[in-house]
């Protein structure tokens, strides 16, 4: 089997007014279709359009009836404003070498949308009642999580794997794809037929005591069986009812999902505003303290002027004292010279005086007298120090910094309050308590469903025990007098078929589990940077997934590791479930670090098969990076853009 998308056309879906035949064809050497688009441009709308066209649902595990209630949100707004009321998605694909065309339309003329589907295989129109079964036969909706994968879910996928419900879902999906329900139904019918033969054989017995004994045993077994079946039926019904309630609650939660985000933002804002108030008060207090302790700060300018004057006076006084000292030294030297002595500073013999020496001494003494007369004391250094101490050089700077901080916080508080006001308007009729109660209700229903599912599992061993007893009787009967050979042959047939079906189901499930485990392990080892420390993944019979080290011990992994485990398992499940089919991934790389992105593109994507459609934004993969990593393996490449800067309008253009 091979299934390959050829092209998709959209009319009035999401931001797309018209996409006329977006070519998705790929070849073995170039199996990748890349669609680039920044956030909010319309990648997810395109992704949901494909899911809606195939299954009538917009989200994983959503039933079409629930999707219909949300459909009006997806009708292109400008088209609706122009009076158009038809939304349509068409997928053309090849399956088993035959051309298929699937069209899903929603007409919004009435109060609720009228959804119609049209499927053609070549020129043959498939009957309405058979369309879902035909699509399910090709790409079963229960396995859509493994080939229509929303990368946003990657973060939680690993944790979901560790819940009973999710494991049951995965196992159930795989079972469905493998056709296990066909075998289980057959097994149930064969058991009924076998029981019927046993009853007929019992009636044929000659000995009335044998007849009575076996009839009694069969009646007892029948009663036990009916009692167990009745209990199981009741729990099954309660489980279904809880499932319906849970779906409703989830829808309500989805409806208030934005409000939940608003409520969370409101709580954060209120806390930030409270923190901001404290911060503002503290800054104002610091400023008050600076004003109290630094009251002279404003006089710093005047004090600096005075200081400059005092410094200048002190410098002049020091200069004059140095001149007086120099004049005194000259007088001393001249006197020593006249007396034939030595220099008072260098202690060397002075030259003998000449006729001008006495005159020079006289002039020097006059200079000393003149300088002494004009001197008015030494520099006042104490005054200079006191003025310096009065000048506050830090308070003004610190005050300015505080002023800036105050300005920033006041401005942030203003923005926060304005945003809070907007949020409060939006949340007016949906208080946080009401939103929280929905979450509580979901939790309660989840727990109820888990309990019912556990109870249902308890019935199997009881029913198996009854079946074993019935088989024992079936084997004893042919040996008794009066037993009919034809009935014995009939019984042998049904008992044989019954055991074959029972073992086949176990064998088939187990083999598939081992294949998924092997494929997922190989994929993980290729994806992880340091593969030395790991043996691979271990998938239990209950589909519990563990990462195991070399000695087979469970290993705890990082967030990045969890994502690689999830990618490996999705890849392996996709291989097991939709071998040969396409895979569409919305933002698959967004949560991976840079190193792993290239590795995933080079290793993981090629494992996915002959057609991988990747919807990416530049933050996870730019056009340039895509080409350098995948090169010629890219078969088609497109870019989503907004032609008129209008968020309700998007177009797709080919880039390669």
């Amino acid at each position, binding site marked *: 089997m091979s299934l390959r998308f050829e092209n998709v056309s959209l009319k009035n879906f999401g931001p797309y007014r018209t996409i006329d035949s977006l070519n998705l064809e790929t070849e073995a050497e170039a199996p990748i279709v890349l669609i680039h688009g920044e956030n909010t441009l319309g990648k997810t709308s395109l992704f949901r359009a494909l899911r809606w066209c195939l299954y009538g649902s917009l989200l994983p595990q959503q039933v079409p009836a629930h999707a219909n209630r949300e459909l009006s949100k997806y009708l292109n707004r400008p088209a609706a404003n122009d009076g158009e009321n038809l939304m349509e998605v068409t997928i053309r694909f090849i399956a088993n070498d035959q051309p298929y065309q699937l069209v899903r339309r929603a007409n919004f003329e009435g109060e609720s949308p009228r959804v119609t589907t049209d499927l053609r295989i070549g020129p043959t129109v498939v009957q309405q009642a058979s369309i879902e079964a035909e699509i399910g036969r090709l*790409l079963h909706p229960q396995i859509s999580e493994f080939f229509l994968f929303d990368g946003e879910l990657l973060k939680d996928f690993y944790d979901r794997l560790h819940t009973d419900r999710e494991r049951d879902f995965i196992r159930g999906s795989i079972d469905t*794809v493998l056709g296990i329900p*066909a075998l289980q*139904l057959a097994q149930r019918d064969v058991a009924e*037929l076998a029981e019927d033969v046993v009853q007929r054989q019992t009636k044929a017995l000659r000995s009335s005591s044998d007849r009575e004994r076996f009839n009694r045993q069969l009646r007892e077994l029948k009663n036990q069986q009916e009692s167990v079946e009745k209990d199981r039926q009741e729990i099954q019904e309660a489980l279904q009812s809880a499932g319906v309630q849970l779906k409703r609650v989830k829808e309500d939660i989805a409806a208030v999902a934005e409000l939940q985000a608003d409520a969370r933002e409101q709580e954060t804002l209120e806390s930030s505003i409270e923190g901001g108030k404290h911060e503002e008060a503290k800054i104002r207090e610091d400023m008050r303290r600076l004003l109290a302790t630094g009251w002279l700060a404003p006089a710093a300018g005047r004090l600096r002027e005075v200081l400059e004057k005092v410094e200048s006076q002190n410098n002049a006084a020091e200069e004059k004292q140095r001149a007086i000292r120099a004049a005194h030294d000259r007088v001393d030297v001249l006197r020593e010279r006249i007396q034939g002595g030595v220099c008072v500073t260098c202690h060397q013999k002075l030259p003998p005086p000449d006729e001008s020496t006495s005159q020079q001494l006289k002039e020097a003494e006059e200079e000393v007298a003149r300088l002494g007369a004009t001197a008015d004391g030494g520099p006042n250094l104490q005054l200079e120090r006191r003025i310096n101490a009065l000048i506050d050089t830090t308070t003004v700077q610190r005050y300015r910094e505080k002023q800036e901080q105050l300005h920033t916080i006041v401005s942030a508080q203003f923005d926060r309050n304005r945003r809070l006001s907007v949020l409060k308007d939006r949340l007016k009729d949906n208080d946080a308590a009401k939103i929280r109660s929905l979450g509580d209700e979901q939790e309660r229903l989840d727990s109820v469903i888990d309990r019912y599912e556990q109870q249902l599992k308890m019935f199997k061993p009881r029913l198996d025990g009854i079946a074993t007893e019935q088989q024992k009787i079936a084997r004893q009967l042919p040996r008794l007098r009066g037993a009919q050979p034809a009935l014995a042959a009939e019984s042998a047939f049904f008992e*044989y*078929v019954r055991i074959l079906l029972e*073992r*086949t189901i176990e064998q088939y499930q187990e083999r598939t589990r081992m294949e998924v485990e092997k494929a997922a392990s190989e994929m993980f080892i290729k994806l992880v940077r340091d593969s030395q420390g790991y043996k691979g993944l271990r998938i239990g019979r209950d589909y519990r997934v563990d990462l195991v080290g070399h000695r087979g011990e469970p290993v705890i992994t990082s967030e990045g590791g969890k994502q690689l485990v999830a990618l490996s398992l999705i890849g392996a499940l996709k291989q097991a479930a939709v071998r040969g089919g396409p895979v569409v991934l919305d933002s698959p790389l967004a949560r991976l670090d840079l190193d792993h992105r290239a590795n995933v593109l080079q290793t993981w994507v090629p494992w996915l098969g002959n057609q991988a459609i990747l919807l990416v934004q530049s933050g996870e993969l730019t056009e340039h990076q895509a080409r350098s990593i995948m090169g010629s393996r890219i078969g088609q490449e497109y870019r989503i853009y907004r032609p008129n800067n209008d968020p309700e309008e998007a177009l797709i253009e080919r880039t390669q």
Partner: protein
Amino acid sequence: MVHQTNDDSGHGRAGALEALREVAGERDILNDYRTAHGAFQAEDYEQLISIAWRHQFNDDRTKFKRELQELREHVSLRILAKLEVSE
């Protein structure tokens, strides 16, 4: 290797038939159901899976039971013959 699951006749049929044949060849099955096993021919296993797949989406199980009874009639004759021989 993971078995082809989307074949012409629906998900998993080929894999199920292969598993059924493997189970039919297991030693304890041969020992415990010798007569029935000996009466089954290769196409009977195919027929069994084919009927199961054909009616897997039918809520009304009478058609499945009727077709299975048809298969049983053929095989039962062979079982009966073997039972008579063994007696």
